């Protein structure tokens, strides 16, 4: 199991938890979608998994290893997180950023693969520009290419399509699918059913802070029906 959570409850004010008793199991080779209405707790859950939000109880395990304050530097290397509006180090170029982050993960940038991904996303001309001068879409591409290059066992994405152009969206579907097929896993939060039906194997439906249902994906309509049934808008 790449990721396991046991009874994870997260809060901003202790008496009003945003996520409650979340139990998750993420297996290798699969793409998971996290679905939920606004305010359901998707971003909070992802922030807990990414160690950004520290106010939680319960257990988070990556590749069997429990995430604690003492081992977090090592355990964080099992996953890479891309938020919906990635704030990357503005003073660096995308190439320098990727090199820097790879060194933090104890890896080196795979140059041929980088060249291939840049071609896929039409990103070659932006590789040496400063991130601070890039558009939202190109910042998103920087984070996505970096995540795909790192090949961590788990790639976590919060609304991965924000800011991307139509070509990049089409390409990212294939890349994420291939990423999972190489033995990794992908967990993405989204409001868009087409991406779920195109690339996801399972959909986790989060409602009022709890995972109410896990659905094996067989088509857009089936996921939609399950989602609306759970959130009570049939």
């Amino acid at each position, binding site marked *: 199991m790449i990721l396991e959570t046991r009874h994870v409850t997260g809060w901003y004010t202790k008496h009003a938890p945003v996520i409650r008793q979340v139990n998750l199991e993420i297996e290798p080779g699969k793409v998971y979608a996290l679905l939920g209405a606004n305010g359901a707790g998707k971003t909070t859950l992802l*922030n807990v998994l*990414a*160690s*950004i939000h520290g106010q939680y109880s319960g257990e988070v395990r990556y590749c069997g290893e429990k995430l604690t304050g003492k081992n*977090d*530097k*090592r355990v*964080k*290397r099992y996953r890479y*997180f891309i*938020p919906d509006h*990635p*704030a*990357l*180090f*503005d*003073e*660096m*170029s995308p*190439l*320098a*950023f990727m*090199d*820097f*982050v790879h060194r*933090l*993960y104890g890896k080196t940038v795979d140059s041929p693969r980088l060249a291939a991904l840049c071609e896929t996303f039409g990103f070659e001309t932006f590789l*040496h*520009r*400063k991130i*601070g*001068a890039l558009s939202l879409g190109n910042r998103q591409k920087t984070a996505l290419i970096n995540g795909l290059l790192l090949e961590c066992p788990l790639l976590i994405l919060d609304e991965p399509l924000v800011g991307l152009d139509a070509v990049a969206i089409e390409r990212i579907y294939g890349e994420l699918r291939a990423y999972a097929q190489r033995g990794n896993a992908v967990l993405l939060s989204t409001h868009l059913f087409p991406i779920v039906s195109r690339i996801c194997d399972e959909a986790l439906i989060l409602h009022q802070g709890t995972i109410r249902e896990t659905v094996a994906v067989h088509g857009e309509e089936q996921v939609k029906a399950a989602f609306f049934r759970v959130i009570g808008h049939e």
Partner: protein
Amino acid sequence: MNDVRALFRVLLLDEIKGRRPLKELAAILVLIVVLFCVVPSEYTAVHARSLGVLLKGTAAAALYLSLLSGLSKLKDRKYKLLLAMPVGKTTLMLLYAAVVWIKHIGLRVMPFVLAILASNVSYRNITLLEGAGGGLMCAAAGLAACWCGISAVFFLGDRGFLRSRPERSAMKFGWIRREFVRFAGEKVLFLNHAGYSLFLVFFLYMSTAVSRAGVELILFLLVLLSTCSTPGVLFSWEKPYRQLLLSLPVSRGGLFAGKYIFALAIMFPLYAAAYGIVCAFGPGLDRWGLLAMMAISLGLTTLVKLYYDMKRPNYDWSHPRQMFEHKRKYMLWLISVTVSVPLMVYSYMSIWFAGALQMVFAGCLLYAIRKGRTQG
């Protein structure tokens, strides 16, 4: 008219948020009293002919502070939001200049100016009329300088002259290099640090080389070197990247070490210049002893301020100037002065004792910060 009043209110509240005006005024009053007790009266004496110097000083301070505030405001998302609204640009500039005047000149510079003028009126160096006229002229010169500074920055910003260049980079990064590159690219932080350092060096030079001040005043000015607040905001400055830093496998020790080395590097020129001035023009002090004391002070104050900022970062800012203007700046000043105050007694006791005292003070502060409430 109501919209102008509402806009002014929004701008003013945004600039003074997180501050406690009464406490600030009380702190300024305390500072004025301390200054007048420590600084001999001949250094604050003003005559009718030298009122012009006070006027020029006020205008220069207002120009510098308004340039800094304007540069910082250009980065504020709220400023961009206001630009998108049906608000006249000239009105916006005028109102912001007024806000900057109130914040910097009215509440900070003018109390000192008025205190100097009042003390000179009481010593009969100038008449009451000259004092009142001088005060009014300083206030007017400050307002004019604020207007010029803000207009110049907004005008240049609109025409793209203040955009950072180049937009390409092929550099490799580590924690230390990242700090230097960010610092060089952030005009507000750079100017704030350079301006404050130059002000302290200028003041020390004037006291030492021109006025030939005594040992006590020089040692007091050396203590003030530690109040340069750049090391105390380096973690707060990570506000835009705090989520990224939390999510990446970053070693906290590595990040802290990078910032500490960087902070020492940018503080070193200030201490070196001050040491050079005191050695060249100051009264007879043991040079090696002074060097050791200043080195200890530099190392310890930087360490304690950085540690404080790591434990209690201030993320309540929307443009860089607000990092320095937060209410916690008094805590940072107190920390700095507490650690380096043994410098003032160094000429009366052995260097070992003064150095040990600095270490004890720093140790106690580090312990208190560690045990205290932690944020971020």
